[in-house]
C-alpha cells in the first residue's frame, strides 16, 4: 500500500524502532520517518554489535580465528565454520577425506534446519502468535542434542578443522538423526495446519514487501529472500562445493517475491535439507574423518575466495595472505547485510505492522551484519 500523495513536512515524525525493540531480533535500530502508521522513510542503523571480527582475523594466526567464525551468525554456525576451513584448504591445497565432507554436509544441513526452525518461530512471534516458537524450539532441541554429542557445544560450534572434522560421528548419531528426520516429517502437517493455512497469517503475509528480481540484483540479495523472488540461486547448486553435487535435492523458488513466498521457500527448504541428510546417512562412506595435516601450516602468499550457502544466503570469505601464518586481510561477505539493505527502498509507504512482517521474513541475524 504505497503512499502516493505528498506528505507535508509538518505531518511527519520520527519513530525510533530499536535497538531494544522486541521484533528487531537483536540490536538493530531502524529510524522510521512516519506519517501516522505509514512509514515514509525507514533507515536502518547498524553497528551496535560490532566486534571487529575482520580486524581480529588480521591479528591472530589463522587457526586462532576458527572459533570466531561461530560468533557471527549464531543461528547457523556450521556453514560459517565450513566456509573458513574450506578457504584455508583451497589456499593451502589440503585434501579432505570424503567421509569428512559427508559429515560436514550432514551436520551443516542439520544446523540449517535448526536455524530455519528458529526463524519460523520468531516470524510468528513478530506476527503475534506465541505458540509456534515453542513447538519449533522443541524440534530444534533435538538437533542441538544430536550436535552437542559430536561437537561438544550447543550453539557456537567449532567443529570443522582444516582437513576434516574434530570428531568422528558414530552409530548413535546416525540412529538419532534418522529418528529426528522421522519426527520432523511427522510435524510438518501440524505446522501447515496451525500456521501455513491460517487465514490471518496468509492475509498478513500475502503481497507484503514484494521484491522483484531486478531489485535482488541491485542489492546483492541472496538466499531464501532471492529465491522467494524466483531467482534459483543457491551456492550449493550454482557453485557446488564439498560433496553437494552428489546429492539429489531441489531449490524451492517463489513466484511473487512477497513475504509469503519467502516464508514458503524456507519451509520447503526444511524438507530438502532432510532429504540431503537422509541421502548422506545412506551413502556415508567409511574412512578417515580427518586428513593428515602438519601441525603448523604456513599460508602461501596470494588471495583466495570461498563461498558457501548459509541458512540466510551466500557467505563469502576472501583472504589475502602475505605468506605468514597471520592473514593480511580477511573480508567476510555476509548475506544478511545485503538482504537488509533492501529495507529502505522496500518499506517506503508501508504500514508499521508490515515492516515487522517483512523484517521477519528476511530472517535477519544482527550480529552477523555487525560482526
Amino acid at each position: 500500500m504505497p503512499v502516493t500523495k505528498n506528505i507535508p513536512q509538518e505531518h511527519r515524525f520520527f519513530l525510533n524502532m530499536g535497538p531494544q525493540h522486541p521484533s528487531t531480533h537483536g540490536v538493530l535500530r531502524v529510524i522510521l520517518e512516519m506519517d501516522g502508521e505509514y512509514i515514509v522513510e525507514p533507515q536502518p542503523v547498524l553497528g551496535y554489535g560490532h566486534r571487529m571480527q575482520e580486524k581480529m582475523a588480521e591479528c591472530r594466526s589463522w587457526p586462532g580465528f576458527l572459533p570466531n567464525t561461530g560468533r557471527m551468525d549464531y543461528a547457523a554456525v556450521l556453514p560459517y565454520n565450513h566456509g573458513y576451513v574450506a578457504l584455508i584448504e583451497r589456499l593451502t591445497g589440503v585434501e579432505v577425506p570424503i567421509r569428512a565432507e559427508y559429515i560436514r554436509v550432514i551436520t551443516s544441513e542439520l544446523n540449517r534446519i535448526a536455524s530455519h526452525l528458529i526463524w519460523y518461530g520468531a516470524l510468528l512471534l513478530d506476527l503475534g502468535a506465541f505458540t509456534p516458537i515453542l513447538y519449533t524450539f522443541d524440534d530444534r532441541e533435538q538437533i542441538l542434542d544430536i550436535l552437542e554429542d559430536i561437537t561438544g557445544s550447543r550453539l557456537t560450534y567449532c567443529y570443522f578443522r582444516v582437513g576434516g572434522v574434530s570428531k568422528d560421528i558414530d552409530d548413535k548419531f546416525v540412529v538419532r538423526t534418522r529418528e529426528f528426520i522421522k519426527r520432523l516429517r511427522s510435524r510438518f502437517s501440524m505446522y501447515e495446519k496451525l500456521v501455513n493455512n491460517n487465514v490471518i497469517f496468509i492475509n498478513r503475509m500475502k503481497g507484503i514487501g514484494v521484491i522483484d528480481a531486478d531489485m535482488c540484483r541491485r542489492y546483492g540479495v541472496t538466499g531464501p529472500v532471492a529465491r522467494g523472488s524466483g531467482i534459483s540461486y543457491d551456492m550449493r547448486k550454482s557453485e557446488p562445493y564439498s560433496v553437494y553435487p552428489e546429492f539429489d535435492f531441489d531449490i524451492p523458488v517463489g513466484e511473487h517475491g512477497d513475504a509469503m513466498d519467502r516464508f514458503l521457500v524456507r519451509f520447503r527448504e526444511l524438507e530438502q535439507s532432510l532429504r540431503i541428510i537422509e541421502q548422506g546417512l545412506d551413502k556415508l562412506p567409511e574412512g578417515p574423518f580427518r586428513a593428515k595435516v602438519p601441525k603448523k601450516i604456513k599460508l602461501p602468499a596470494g588471495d583466495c575466495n570461498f563461498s558457501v550457502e548459509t541458512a540466510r544466503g551466500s557467505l563469502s570469505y576472501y583472504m589475502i595472505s602475505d605468506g605468514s601464518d597471520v592473514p593480511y586481510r580477511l573480508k567476510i561477505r555476509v548475506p544478511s547485510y545485503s538482504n537488509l539493505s533492501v529495507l529502505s527502498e522496500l518499506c517506503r509507504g508501508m504500514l508499521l505492522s508490515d515492516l515487522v512482517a517483512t523484517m521477519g521474513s528476511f530472517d535477519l541475524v544482527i550480529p552477523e551484519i555487525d560482526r
Partner: protein
Amino acid sequence: METAGNLVLLRMVIAVVLIVAFVFLNALIMGYLERKISARIQRRPGLMEVGPHGILQLLIDGFKLIGKQLIIPKDADRFLFRLAPLLSFVPVVLPLMVIPFSSKLQGRDFDIGLIFILAISSLNVMAILMAGWASNNKYSLFGAMRSVAQNISYEIPMLLSLLAVIFMTNTFSMQGIVQAQNKIWFFLVQPVAFLIYIIASFAETNRAPFDLPEAESELTAGYHTEYSGMGFSLFMLAEYANMFVVCSIATVMFLGGWHGIPLPFGEYSNAIWFFMKVYGLMVFMIWVRWTYPRTRFDQLMNFCWKYLIPFALVNLLVTVVLVKLL
C-alpha cells in the same frame, strides 16, 4: 419507606464491596488459568514453583507488583498518567452490579440493565486513550489511537447483535432476558448474532487476535508501555474483569444465563451454572489467544465495516420481521 430505602442502599454497598473483591479474585483465577492453559497449549509445565502446581504464584506476583516503584516517565502528564489506570478500573466494576449471577444473586436489577452496561463499559476507551496520551511515548500513543478506533467500530456490531435479542425479549432487564430463555437458549435462535457478538467481544477486550492496542511485537506493549508496578497491574485487572463482563453478557444474552440442569447444590446450582458458562467462554478466549497470529489494523477495520456490521444489520432486520410476523 425509609428502612426499605436504607436496605436497598445497604444491599448496593455490600454488592460493590463483594464485586471489587471478586474482580481481584477473578484476576487471580484468570491469571492462573491463562498461564496454565497457555503452558498446556505450548507443551510446557507452566507455573510449578509456588504452592502445589503453582496456584499461589499469582498472589506472590500481586505482592511483587504492589512493592514495585511507580516510575513516571519524564515529561509525562503526571496527573493523567496516574488517573488512567484507576479510570480503566471503574467501568469494569460497575457493569458487574447488574449482572444476574443467579435468580437472587444480583446487585440490582435495572429496567435498563443492558444499556447501563454498554454505556459504562465504553468509558474504558477513555482510560486507554488517557494512558496513551499521558505517557509521552509514541508507541503508547499508537496503541491508544488504535484502541479508540477499534473499540468504537466494534461497539456497533456488538450493539446490533444484542439488539436482535432485545427485540425477542422486549426487555432491557438482565433478569428478564435470562427468564425469557427458560425454554430455549438464544444462541440456538440467534446463531449469527452470537457469532458476531463473540468476535466483537474479542476486539472490545483487546484480546488476540485483535490485541492491536498492546501488540507486543510492533508497539512493545502499546498503551501500557510506560506503566510499571500497580499501574500495570490495574490495567491487567481491568482486562480480565472486562473479559468477565463481556463473557457474562454473552452468557446472559445467548447461553441462558443461570439456567441449567439442576445440580445437587440447591439454590447455588444456578450460580454455579452461570460461572461455569462464563469461565468456559473465557477459557475459549484464552485458547484463541494462544493459537492465532495478530491481524493487521486495516484488516481489522475492514472486517468490521465490510462484514460484521452488514451481517448484523441483516440479522437484525430478519429478526424484526420474524418477531412481527410470529
